[in-house]
């Protein structure tokens, strides 16, 4: 039980770490810049949210399969991701990207652009304006988004099981462990796993709620 929980938390944490910066960047881009293809990018970023997770998993599999763009035959070496915990991290990251990006976009949109303009009048360049004004004002919303991404990564199953499999001790996370327990008819074990999932998920979403409640309180 404990190794499953540890692996799950590790996969979710790494996926969140990996996805945070690109997702926040996407969120900022979508909130603050207007460019050709804005809507297309917005739709693409949101796609994993509406596709069946298994479809996303299958696309990732195609990408990483030996003849795929990132496969052994194309690159000339094996990046060694498929059917390892790294694949689970990748799947969880891709699945939580839209959630983090969307929350980040909303957080950036909630920052009054005229406050950024005031920063400019006080001599701040674009980078300093972002660092001193935009980022701190969006911080709570961004933190809530990252936490939301973490909870999504905790429960990721469909895409994970396709690219990482369900190998006990290696790629078996909480979600796949529950699936296996149910398939094996071990309902007691399934109940215990679900209890663990309930507690971790509840705690994470509670913190996210607390963070988003306070966002904008200072405006």
């Amino acid at each position, binding site marked *: 039980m404990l190794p499953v929980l540890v692996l799950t938390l590790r996969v979710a944490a790494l996926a969140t770490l990996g996805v945070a910066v690109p997702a926040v960047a996407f969120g900022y881009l979508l909130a603050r810049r207007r460019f050709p293809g804005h809507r297309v990018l917005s739709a693409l970023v949101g796609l994993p949210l509406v596709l069946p997770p298994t479809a996303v998993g299958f696309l990732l599999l195609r990408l990483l399969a030996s003849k795929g763009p990132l496969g052994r035959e194309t690159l000339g070496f094996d990046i060694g991701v498929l059917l390892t915990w790294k694949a689970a991290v990748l799947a969880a990251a891709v699945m939580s990207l839209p959630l983090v990006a969307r929350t980040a976009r909303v957080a950036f949109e909630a920052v*009054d652009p*005229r*406050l950024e*303009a*005031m*920063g*400019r*009048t*006080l*001599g*701040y*360049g674009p980078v300093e304006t972002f660092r001193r*004004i935009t980022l*701190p*004002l969006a911080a709570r919303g961004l933190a809530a988004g990252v936490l939301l991404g973490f909870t999504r990564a905790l429960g990721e199953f469909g895409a994970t099981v396709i690219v990482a499999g369900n190998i006990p001790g290696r790629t078996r996370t909480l979600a796949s462990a529950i699936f296996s327990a149910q398939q094996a008819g071990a309902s007691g074990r399934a109940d215990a796993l679900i209890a663990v999932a309930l507690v971790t998920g509840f705690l994470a979403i509670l913190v996210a709620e607390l963070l988003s409640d306070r966002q904008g309180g*200072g*405006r």
Partner: protein
Amino acid sequence: MKNLHVDLELPLDRFTLRTEFVATASVTGLFGPSGAGKTSVLETIVGLRPEASGRIAFDDEVWFDSKRSLRVRTEDRGIGYVPQDSLLFPHWDVRANLLAGSRRSIEAGVDPAPVLAGVIDALELTSLLERSVTTLSGGERRRVAIGRALGSAPRMLLLDEPLASLDLPLRRRLLPMLRRVCTELTVPMLLVSHEPLEIQALCDEVVALDRGRTLAQGPPATVLTDPRVFPLAESSGLANVLAGRVIDTVGDIGRIAVGGAGGGGLEIVASPVAAAAGADVLIELPVNQILIAVERPNGLSARNLWPAVVRTIEPRGALALVTAEPTGGGEPLIVELTEATPAELDLAPGRAIHLVFKATSCRVYGGRDPEPDG
């Protein structure tokens, strides 16, 4: 004093703003009714309206020239901007807001510490320094915003309606502070207002704007009484604004010497006066609150009776504006009459008259705090 050259065209919702003026005075006013495009002019000068075309130059330094596709970035123009809604940074306390522009100040070779100390003193911000800006009142926010702009060592200060939406007691406090800031600083200012009082009390020169067009430019008294500009002021009313010093007070009633050092001893009795003896104050005397008597009246309840000489009489629609110079010295006063009155009284330039106004018609700004801010 450096000159700001503005020649702009900017498409707005209801009209295209086209204005051209040169701000040469230490405090230049931009006067016009709401919706005249005043704020848009300020935003374009700051560099926040990319859709504008034209040319903006600060002396020989061109900030914007659409013909040459030249646009100096907002952060490189060195303008202190105080928008109408203050726009303080909500994640910082008052002190941090005031320090927001100190790096630019240092880069400009100005030590921000003494500047800020002076600003904190002039705007009475000492007790607010540790406060979160979200707990400030409207007047306090305005003061911090002005202080923040001044703390960045601006080469020019733009103020958008600094007293708008503040109630009378607050204006009584803030107006003298602004006047102090205006006179003590060598930073040229451009001040937007739809209130004649602000323009008269603070500006050396004024540009009148309506529906995106420049109507007139010149000294406040001349521009505000201009036939095209005068009707724009009518909603808030035109007033004479006099600087004076309190001689003494008895209860709420105060005697105030006006007309400056060489004013020749003109005295106004005003009520209420919150300032103590010796305090410098501003007196607002609405043009429609002054009576003209062709002979010296007797047994009158009004406390102020000034002999004067008519200088000009100008019709303004259904009204007439009479300019009269007090024989005791000082600035001429403007009196508003109905159109037919000057003829009925046989008024003509050069005729000796008496100006009559009540103590309670005078609004006195300045002195000690009449009410806590907030």
